[in-house]
């Protein structure tokens, strides 16, 4: 293994500009072997450029990329895509329409006696046994997705890159296929990088989430860390829903807000702060005429419900209710927060 770290992929200070647009801004990213990392960011943040730079389709302006310790891009180095051992699963799957399922899966496998066995083993692993002779258009959307992944895994690459692979699927299918893909990646022991703008997808599938914004990685960590301890207000807002209330930190560990005095989990000790409260951290403790807050919106999801509540001062909060209490719009309620909250120094807006 290399001295640069144990990562299957190491990106250090990678920059790339298209004309005046700086797509990657000295981006650092390290993928641990055998894990699934999600790069999560809004569209246009540079995540697809990062993927294409790792795969070798874009030439980087500066910085270095190593795959399994070997430099593939950097000063004076640009390995063509076919020599990087980095495979891709593109957005629309892009199965070769003129080749059978087996020929698609075997496309990147070296010719020889071992090829057929490798293809069969991969079809078996991907739950495609017996479909090898079909043509791609004869498969369902989920099967096509698995063929695309099996094709990328079959040559035994150092890393598999998945570029928003579920965007083209309809919502009902997406959930099921996400877990199939995650299971297949785990079973094959591959290192993989998933690029997505869908925070639910990143949080539910990946072992590590890297949040990207304006061409730079702003936070890396396990999904629960990124959700519970966002690096800044922007990440808090982008990853999951967040209520943001102005507050004033007065004594050690507490903050004054429109909801009263709250316990601070992490944040500055004094001064004006922005308080981040997740909708599930709030409860409705009383309803009836006694409440000072008013329900002004109600969305019922079956397993839970989200209600919008307006405080007397005009601040608006989203509250996630585990069971769907019959709270009509217009009801007067009392909202409270018992859990420790996050605070950030107030940003000038």
């Amino acid at each position: 293994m290399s001295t640069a770290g144990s990562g299957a992929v190491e990106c250090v200070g990678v920059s790339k500009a298209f004309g005046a647009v700086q797509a990657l801004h000295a981006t650092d990213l390290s993928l641990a072997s055998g894990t699934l990392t999600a790069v999560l960011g809004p569209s246009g943040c540079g995540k697809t450029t990062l993927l294409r730079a790792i795969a070798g389709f874009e030439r980087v302006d500066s910085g270095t990329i190593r795959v399994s310790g070997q430099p593939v891009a950097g000063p004076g180095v640009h390995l063509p895509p076919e020599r990087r051992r980095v495979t891709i699963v593109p957005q629309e799957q892009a199965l070769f329409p003129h080749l059978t399922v087996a020929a698609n899966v075997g496309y990147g496998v070296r010719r020889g006696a071992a090829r057929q066995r490798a293809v069969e083993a991969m079809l078996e692993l991907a739950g495609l046994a017996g479909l090898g002779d079909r043509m791609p258009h004869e498969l369902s959307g989920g099967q096509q997705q698995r063929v695309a992944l099996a094709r990328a895994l079959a040559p035994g690459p150092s890393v598999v890159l998945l570029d928003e692979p579920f965007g083209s699927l309809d919502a009902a299918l997406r959930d099921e296929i996400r877990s199939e893909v995650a299971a297949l990646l785990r079973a094959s022991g591959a290192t993989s990088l998933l690029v997505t703008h869908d925070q639910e997808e990143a949080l539910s599938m990946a072992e590590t989430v890297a949040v990207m914004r304006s061409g730079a990685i702003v936070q890396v960590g396990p999904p629960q860390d990124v959700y519970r301890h966002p690096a800044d207000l922007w990440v808090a807002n982008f990853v999951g829903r967040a209520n943001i209330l102005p507050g004033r930190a007065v004594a050690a560990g507490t903050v004054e807000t429109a909801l009263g005095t709250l316990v601070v989990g992490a944040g500055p000790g004094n001064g004006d702060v922005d308080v981040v409260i997740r909708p599930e951290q709030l409860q409705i403790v009383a309803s009836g005429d006694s409440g000072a807050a008013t329900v002004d919106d109600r969305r019922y999801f079956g397993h839970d419900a989200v209600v919008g509540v307006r405080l007397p001062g005009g601040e608006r909060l989203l509250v996630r209710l585990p069971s769907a209490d019959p709270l009509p719009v217009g009801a007067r309620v009392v909202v409270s927060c018992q859990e420790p909250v996050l605070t950030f120094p107030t940003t000038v807006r």
Partner: protein
Amino acid sequence: MALAGVVALAALLPVAYLVVRAGGGGWSAVAGTLFLDRTARLLVRSLGLAAAVSVASAAIGIALAWLTVRCDLPGRRVWRVLVALPLAVPSYVAAFAFVSNVPTLTGFLPTFAVLTLLSYPYVFLPVAAVLERVDPALEETARSLGDGPATAFRRVTLRQIRPAAATGSLLVCLYVLSDFGAVSILRFDSFTRVIYQSYQSSFDRRPAAILGCLLLVFTMGILVAEARTRGRARYYGGGRGAPRRPPVIRLGRWRWVALVLPVAVTVAALAVPLGTTLRWLAESVRASADLGRIGRAGGATVLASGLGAAVTAVAAVPVALLAARSRSRLAGLIERSAFVGHALPGIVVALSLVFFTVRFMNPLYQRLPVLIFAYMVLFLPLAVSSVYGSALQAPPTLDDVARSLGKRPREVFRTITAPLLAPGVAAGAALVFLTCLKELPATLLLGPTGFETLSTRVWSATQAGAFGDAALPALLLVAAGILPTWALTRRGRTTAS
């Protein structure tokens, strides 16, 4: 990109040289030719013919489309195929058929009639395709808002077919302005005939070049207009297609009266040429025609058309790939210049290549490669649109995936891009082949001395009044032309459903 650029430049080169050649004698010489009364009359005659044929074709094309798609015309499915077939008849064959029956049929009216009978399918085909996929909900909505059936058709459905009819009429204009065979045989002095005569009869060929450029100005203008209306036609006609088929209109007693139109058109445009040809054929068999000569002409035709098809289809590949994959401005320019061939009358391309080879490549003058090159310039658009469909099946993402799976660019082309393009290239080559068979003016001007193809054989035999000699080649050409037309109508049907 570079390859596509080379092809595009090659396609434009002869025309550019024609312009240079026309201007060679200075402005006064150009003006001397342009501002003659003769030129003004020529303009009026050519444009008048084009306009008259377009209007008549639009009327016949729209009426036939409406009758065969929307009405309970007896045998309408058969008629839909039959009335598209006149497209397959070369204009000089139809003209030969009329003239050989009634030798006095010359001038404006016969030319107008022959060209209308052959070119109305340019309107019929797109209008029928649109009528077939117009969403019946549109007419139903109009009915629910208080329109009667006729009013709803006029206010809603007719508006839907207007762009398609406009596109078709402009194609008819192009066809008429470019036609050489019919106007020559029926002795109507339009641009192409006068250019040919001026080229043949005089040592000073500059007037021919100047008239060629003038004709080019009009055909280019029509090409631009056609591209505009086509964009709008797609906007109207596109969408996800109709979920239901429009209701059939019951003509009642009128359905037998309505039959008169398709019957008359088919008899005049198909039965008369075919019947006449067969009659002459019977006579020539009795007179023991020179079968060996026709066999040689057939061989030469297949050779020239085969080479033309192969070269054109291969040249179309880089252009089609570029068109399908790149959205840059340069790519658009290259793509459009490849389509200029649509607007180039064969006589103009031939003329420019004569000038060009005489001046720069004299050893090649009237040699086969120049004729093949002319075919490429003329029919590149046909091949490009055919290959383009396949190129869309091979998006660049497939190349990316194949590269990431360890294949070098050349292997990627061999294993992915080439197999996916193959059907389009083959279809394009077949289409170009069958179109080359019928080509007349370029073959006439550029073919090697003593080189005779089926089309030039029909032409020279007709010119000489030896109608029996023209019969068999004419019949072969019509048979060869029916195949791609059949394919065209079928394609129109599948895209419509």
